[in-house]
Every structure is written in C-alpha cells, then in structure tokens.
C-alpha cells in the first residue's frame, strides 16, 4: 500500500509542474506590455519603470518563473497588481464560501444519483427508469447558468417570490447561511447528479450480469441484499472515478454560480481578477484550483486502492 501511495505521489509531480509551467507562460503571452496593461496607456515612462522594477518584470522570463515557483513551494503566491493584497490571503478568505457551495452540491447530487441510479438499474426499462434517465439527461444538457437563471426567474414569474441572492456568513446567522446555499448548490450539482445517475445505472447493470450475482441468486438470497451487498459495492469504483473527474466541472461551475448568486467565493475572485487583468491573482487562483482538483483525485485513487486490493498490485 505504501509503495502504491508513493508511486501515485511521484506521478502527480510532473502534472503539477506542467500546471505551473502552462499557467505562468500562458499569462506572459498576453498581448501588450504587462505594466502598460496595468497602468493604462497614459502612464509615464517612469511609472512603468517603477512598476516593472517593483514586480520583477525586468528579469528574463525563466528567472521570473523560477522565482514564482520557489515562492509557490513556500506557499507564497505573490501580491495582487491592483490592491497589493496577498493572493494567498484573498484565496484563504474565500475558501469557506466555495467549499460550502461545492460540498453542498456534491451531497445534493449524490443524494439524488444513488437512489435514482439504483432504482433505474433494478427496474430497467420501466416507466420509472425512463423518468430517471430523462431527468439525468436534462441535468446534463441544460447548461449550469440556465438552470441557475430558471431557479431565480421561475419563482418570480409564477409566485412573485424572489429567492434570496446574498451571502450571509455562517457565524452571523447559521440558518440564513444554510438556506441561502441551497438553491446555488442544487444548480451546481444538477449536472453531476445527471452524470452520476447514468454511471451508477450502467455500472450496476454491468455488474448484475456477473457470475457471482447468479451464484448469490442461486443460493437463495433475495434481491435486496444482492443489490446492496454484492452488486453496488463492486459498481462503485468507476462511479467514484467519474465523481472525482466531474469535480472539475463543479470547480469551474462555481465561477458561474457565485456570479449569479452573488457569493464571495474563489470562482468570483477569479472572474473579478480576469475582469481587472490582475495577473498574479489569476495565476494564483488558477494554480490553486488545479492543485485542489489534482489532490482530490489523488485521494480518490488512494481510497479505492485501499478498498480494492486488485488495483494496489496491478
């Protein structure tokens, strides 16, 4: 097990290295001079020179990169061009919002997908199966921002009631905080719910055809323990992988959802810094999001190597 974990850890190093490389150099191919972009076209030569000096833009790119990465390794993401605030500080301030939003979305989508996927597979080709599949497909097809817009607009058009679109910190008013997160989380989780339902259904159908399920039936087990104890557990591994990969959709989706529901999270921070072309902030947020994504997937890999010995030894 330890060797497996070490092997997986070693494997993510080139990926993380690639992420920093791509992010850094992508930011530097931006058309126009960085200092000029920040200070505007009427900035004086002296002001531009001071800005470049201050942010180390005079050095060759590889040196700038090495400096940025060595700071990064020490968890220092630099300062915003606009406010001089610490990028790490800004991100840390906003983690709770995005974390709560993503966690709620994940819980919501799994709470829907599990029963829907299992029932859909067990009652294959019945009315309830078709219903589940149509909903899953709709969750996948309707874009996130459309679902969110519908959630805000439909109650207003039909009942004249507008859902609360503001952020309340958990420490100020726990109840208001949780209720305000429900709609954004459902909107964000809808597509994951769709994907996971489809995945659970197809995996379960696959597993239910295996010999050991026939054996379980032959020894007289009733359907419920067969599905719960024998089939579901074996169907879970590919499902977990998909949930891990789909986390990227959730992380990207927070940009849209936090924008629509006015939540001060990391996604909104990214959107704001893109709007202001605040490159250190964009770089920091992008790298942070990628690292979280890679790290969660690493944890999932390790988790199922621990559950399933076949993976450990392959």
């Amino acid at each position, binding site marked *: 097990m330890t060797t497996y974990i070490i092997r997986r850890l070693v494997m993510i190093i080139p990926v993380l290295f*690639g*992420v920093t490389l791509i992010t850094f150099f992508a930011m530097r191919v931006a058309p126009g001079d960085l200092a000029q972009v920040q200070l505007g076209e009427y900035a004086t030569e002296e002001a531009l020179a001071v800005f470049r000096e201050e942010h180390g833009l005079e050095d060759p790119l590889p040196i700038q990169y090495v400096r940025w990465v060595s700071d990064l390794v020490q968890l220092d993401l630099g300062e915003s061009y606009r406010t001089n605030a610490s990028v790490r500080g800004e991100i840390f301030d906003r983690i709770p919002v995005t974390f709560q939003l993503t966690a709620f979305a994940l819980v919501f989508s799994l709470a829907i997908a599990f029963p829907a996927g299992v029932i859909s597979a067990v009652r294959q080709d019945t009315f309830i199966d078709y219903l589940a599949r149509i909903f899953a497909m709709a969750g996948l097809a*309707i874009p996130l921002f*459309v679902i969110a817009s519908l959630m805000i607009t439909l109650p207003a058009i039909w009942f004249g009631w507008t859902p609360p679109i503001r952020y309340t910190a958990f420490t100020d008013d726990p109840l208001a905080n949780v209720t305000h997160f429900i709609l954004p989380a459902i909107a964000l989780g809808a597509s994951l719910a769709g994907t996971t339902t489809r995945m659970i259904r197809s995996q379960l159908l696959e597993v239910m055809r295996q010999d050991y399920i026939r054996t379980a039936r032959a020894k007289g087990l009733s359907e419920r323990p067969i599905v719960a104890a024998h089939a579901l557990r074996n169907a879970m591994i590919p499902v977990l992988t998909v949930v891990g990969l789909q986390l990227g959709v959730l992380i990207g989706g927070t940009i849209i959802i936090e924008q629509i529901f006015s939540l001060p999270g990391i996604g909104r921070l990214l959107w704001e810094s*893109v709007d202001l072309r605040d490159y250190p902030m*964009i770089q920091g947020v992008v790298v942070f999001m990628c690292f979280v994504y890679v790290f969660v997937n690493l944890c999932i890999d390790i988790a199922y190597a621990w559950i399933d010995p076949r993976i450990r030894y392959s």
Partner: protein
Amino acid sequence: MTQGQETATAPFQPPAAQGSVTGRAVRGLLRFGRRKPLGAFGGLVVIILVITAILAPMIAPHAPNTQSAQIIESPSSEHAFGTDRYGRDVLSRTLYGARISLWVGIVSLTIGVGAGTVLALLSGYLGGIVDTVIQRIMDSILAFPWLVLALAIVSVLGNTLTNVMIAIGILFVPNTARVVRSAVLTIREEAYVDAARVIGCTDWRIMFRHILPNVMAPIIVLVTVGLGSAIIVEASLSFLGLGTPAPAASWGRDLAESRAYWYNDSHLFWPPTIAISLAVFGFNLLGDALRDELDPRLRGR
C-alpha cells in the same frame, strides 16, 4: 486524401454494398432511426439547428443588430418574441444565435480535435520520448477545470471571436489526444502498416494516409459529443461577459444582458434559454447514439 481512400477501397467492395450511394445512406439512416429513436430525434434537432443557421438571413424577420422598434416591446405580430433593451428583434437574434453557436462550435472543434489528432498520431505512432512528452503535457492540461482554463485563456488573449474559438478548442485537445492515441496504438500493429513501411512509405505518409482514415470512428464521436459541450462553453463564457463579443447574437450573452428584465419581461428570458438547452440536448442525444453505434464494445448493451 478522400480520393486516395476511394481508390484503395474500391476493388474490395462486397457485393451487398452495391447500389446507389444515396440509397445506401437512406437505408443506413432508417436503420439508425429504428435502433436509436432518441439519437434520431437528436439528429433531427441538429438538422433543424443547421438549417436555421444557414437560412437565418432569409427567415429572420429583422436584422439582428439594428434597432427595429421601441425598446423592451412585448411580443406582437411584428415582433413575435418582442424586442430587447436596444429595440432589436428577439426572434431574429435567437435565429442568428444558432449561427454563432454552430460556427464557434465547428471552428473550435476543428482546431481542438485537429490538433489533438495530430498529437495523437505523433504520440501513438512514433512512441518513445515524443509519446512521453506529449502525454505528460496532456495530463497537465487535463488538471485544469474546463471553465477555469477557458476563462484564463480568454483573459490572456482578449475576448475576440477568434480567441474564444481557440480557448474552447484547446479544451478538446487532451481528450482527443488520449482517445485517438489508443486507437492509433492498435492500428499501428496491423499488417498493412508494416506493408506500407516495407514499400518505403515515409512515417508522415503512413500516419496520415494509412492510420488516420482507420481511426475516424472515435474522431467522429468526439466531434459530435464535443459540439454540445462547445456550445455550452461558448454560452457560459458569453454569459460571464467573456465570450463572443457584442453585438453578435450569442444566446449566452443575450441571456446575461437581459438579466434585469427577466421578471417583468420573460419574453427576453425564454428564447435564448430554450434555444441553448435544445441545441445541447440534440447534440448530446445524437452523440450518445453515435457512440453506441460506432463503438463495438458497447454494441448490444
């Protein structure tokens, strides 16, 4: 390339496949429709979308970007879906929106899947260090959540139509490179590839004349499924104000811009909403069905 392919396959055509090309195509389509009714429905939606996009200048009652009436007019016989906050005809903009969506989708897919396929051929056929380097780069790109990557690219390049297409295209490179590479790996071992090498074909020729035509099935699936996703990404970027620049009729942008009017003037809300959902739904259904048909491993499930 098509010409070479035809001459190469012509002598081996089985007798059953004789008859006019159109006849075969129609029979094939009918069979597809019987076996995959949902996929056929998706195909129908896609066809309607394509026709709308092509005929938009002819069927749209007004020009999409000119003020043709008072602002925020409710639907009337003159303006079936009313007008927006600049007095532009909403129906015409929705019809023209099909053009932007499809155009962005097709061009970005061509960029992305094209680049991905070339990388996959190099990676799979040449192997060795080329393979390792390309695949590691692809792994790194896959570590970016898709919207984050698209947003970062657009923010760097600036949001012109071309840059939006490039940004969306890049999202499809790593996946294409991986999927097509695995297909290339199997084809590489075929006897006809050895034969081509023996008669002295260059690596370049083997990759593009002999291997590429045989990995088209996964590429077609990638493109169909990808178009749905590309439309979503374009609409999402435009919704965030970073996609197709104004005043082009983009569904995502039109939806975002009418945000203040959703409650009282829902005629601004429904047309882009329904158009986007329907378009994506169509491509998803068609793509799913095509994947089942073209992927032998899934056949009969």
